[in-house]
């Protein structure tokens, strides 16, 4: 983990890697969302497909609250201009997180009482609601074409573009993506630590208890409804944070990016990374987000993939979908812990001794085995 971190810190300094910055930034944003979904799915055992709803709340909410009167003019009629509240970016982030919490709480009569798979179906409703709302509340969301996101500009952590020759750090011009990378990295680290501490403490254990058996859990005093609703709310807040990050990384947001495909992508991230493994979610997010770009860039070496203008052959996105869809299936059939589980197995095989660490997290795979 530490090694990965060092690499991550180094990234903008290597020219080779710098091309990857934009997709990597997006992956970081997704990572936070994946962590949130892991809390709900891996620890609490609830299937929620509503993640994009809260991500959209985050992204659009942030744009709304932090842009001033959006000067998207130049021939645009007055009625078409997008409204904004013009708050300080940090403040609007906080407001958005609170908003997500409130919305999650509003949904909690359903989230708290509806079990497992049925929550999945109910949450589908939220995703469709998202699409409909975003298309129709034009004053806030900019309708079909979306809206631009104001650039983050807060004191020393500002990511305003800097003029050349002004911000060169060890020979590398620090433009917007670079600074954003560090900002997002910091946020991901914070979220990870926050989530990990939560899951190692009492709430985490309560959630796992209710995932593994509701009757024993309630016998032990876990208030099922409250904890289910709470897990949902927490994951909603993570999703909103992810939305804010996504908006910042992308610069522009449209309703199309918050549909069911995103929902499935998040699930894939969590499953591939490993349910119950927060670090795994980050890896899973990287995997799913980076894959299309990876395939695009190395397309020639991969069979079946076509160049950009060749209609015969898979587009990189399609190939990426095949890959991660297939990976999800294979993982679910054979190795439950996802990549984290594989790593654990490898480590144990290498050491060949029982691990003396007492693991607090019992990951119960989706296929029923318990993997201590």
């Amino acid at each position: 983990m530490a090694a990965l971190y060092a690499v991550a810190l180094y990234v903008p300094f290597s020219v080779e890697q710098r091309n990857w910055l934009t997709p990597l930034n997006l992956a970081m944003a997704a990572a936070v969302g994946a962590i949130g979904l892991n809390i709900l799915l891996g620890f609490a055992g609830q299937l929620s497909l509503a993640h994009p709803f809260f991500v959209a709340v985050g992204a659009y909410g942030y744009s709304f609250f932090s842009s001033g009167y959006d000067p998207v003019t130049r021939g645009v009629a007055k009625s078409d201009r997008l409204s904004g509240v013009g708050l300080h970016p940090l403040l609007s982030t906080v407001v958005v997180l609170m908003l997500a919490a409130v919305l999650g709480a509003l949904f909690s009569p359903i989230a708290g009482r509806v079990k497992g798979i049925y929550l999945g179906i109910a949450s589908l409703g939220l995703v469709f609601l998202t699409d409909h709302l975003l298309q129709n509340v034009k004053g806030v969301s900019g309708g079909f074409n979306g809206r631009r996101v104001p650039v983050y500009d807060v004191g020393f952590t500002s990511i305003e573009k800097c003029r050349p020759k002004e911000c060169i750090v060890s020979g590398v011009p620090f433009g917007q993506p670079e600074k954003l990378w560090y900002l997002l990295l910091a946020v991901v680290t914070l979220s990870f630590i926050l989530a990990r501490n939560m899951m190692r403490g009492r709430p985490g254990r309560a959630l796992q208890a209710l995932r593994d058996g509701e009757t024993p859990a309630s016998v032990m005093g876990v208030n099922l409804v409250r904890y289910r609703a709470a897990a949902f709310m927490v994951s909603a807040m993570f999703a909103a944070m992810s939305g804010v990050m996504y908006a910042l990384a992308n610069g522009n947001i449209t309703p199309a990016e918050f549909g069911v495909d995103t929902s499935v992508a998040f699930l894939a991230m969590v499953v591939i990374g490993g349910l119950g493994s927060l670090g795994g979610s980050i890896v899973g997010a990287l995997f799913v987000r980076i894959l299309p770009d990876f395939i695009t860039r190395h397309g020639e070496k991969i069979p079946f993939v076509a160049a950009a203008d060749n209609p015969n052959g898979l587009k990189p996105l399609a190939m990426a979908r095949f890959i991660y869809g297939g990976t999800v299936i294979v993982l679910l059939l054979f190795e439950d812990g996802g990549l984290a589980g594989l790593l654990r197995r490898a480590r144990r095989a290498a050491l060949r001794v029982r691990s003396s660490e007492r693991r607090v997290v019992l990951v119960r795979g989706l296929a029923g085995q318990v993997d201590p």
Partner: protein
Amino acid sequence: MTRLFQFLVDGVSTGAVYARIALGYVIIFKASEVVTFAHGGVLAVGGYMIWYARDRWFKGGGQGNFWLAVLVGLLVAISLSVVVERLFIRRMQSKSASIIGICILTLGLDVILETYSNYGVASSGKELLDLDNPWGLGATSVLGVRVSDARIAALAIGTVVNTALFLWLKYTDWGVAMRATATNQEAAPLMGIRLGRVSMVAWAIAGALATIAAIFLSAAPSPGFDGSTGDWRSKPSRQQSSVVSTHHAARSPVG
């Protein structure tokens, strides 16, 4: 008044198509307790196969060729469903996997199936795939109202299929076995019903229903089969209401 009639026919025929899709979900759920998210994918692949057969093997000609293509599509969808059931669902169930795990698996399958179908559409170079169905874009006058032929066909064929299904469920041995499994999955094997077979048949039927629905989904409102025909947009709302209500009513697939 004529407008009302037109809306009525439109609505009922579209509803019949969606009902068929919902029926597929319900049958699977009742037989194997799995909410399959892959149904949309099966639908997409089935429809695409019909077009493929129509385009490559049975081009031209009149009705006969069209129905042959439909047969191909049905066979593909049915075998696909059966393979899915045997290979994946059974496996997961024998490992006593949680329902959520199985459902996520079906999500993964759906991604693959729909991507494949989209790829098929894209590689044909066209935007919409014309299934070249016998009723085309024509419209006939019924009771003084112009109703599109496609809708009438959807309604007619839909009624026939649904009726056949209900009769089958009610009167044949297999049908009774399926209803028994739906009613009480633990008691059914005690009565000598082989759950594995029932499950397989359920998935097969669902696959067939989906393909038939695909034919009509691509007939109207927009003629032609495109990437979004198997898409999520319209299906899950039907799915939600049907599965939830069925669970609470605890009735047979007929319900």
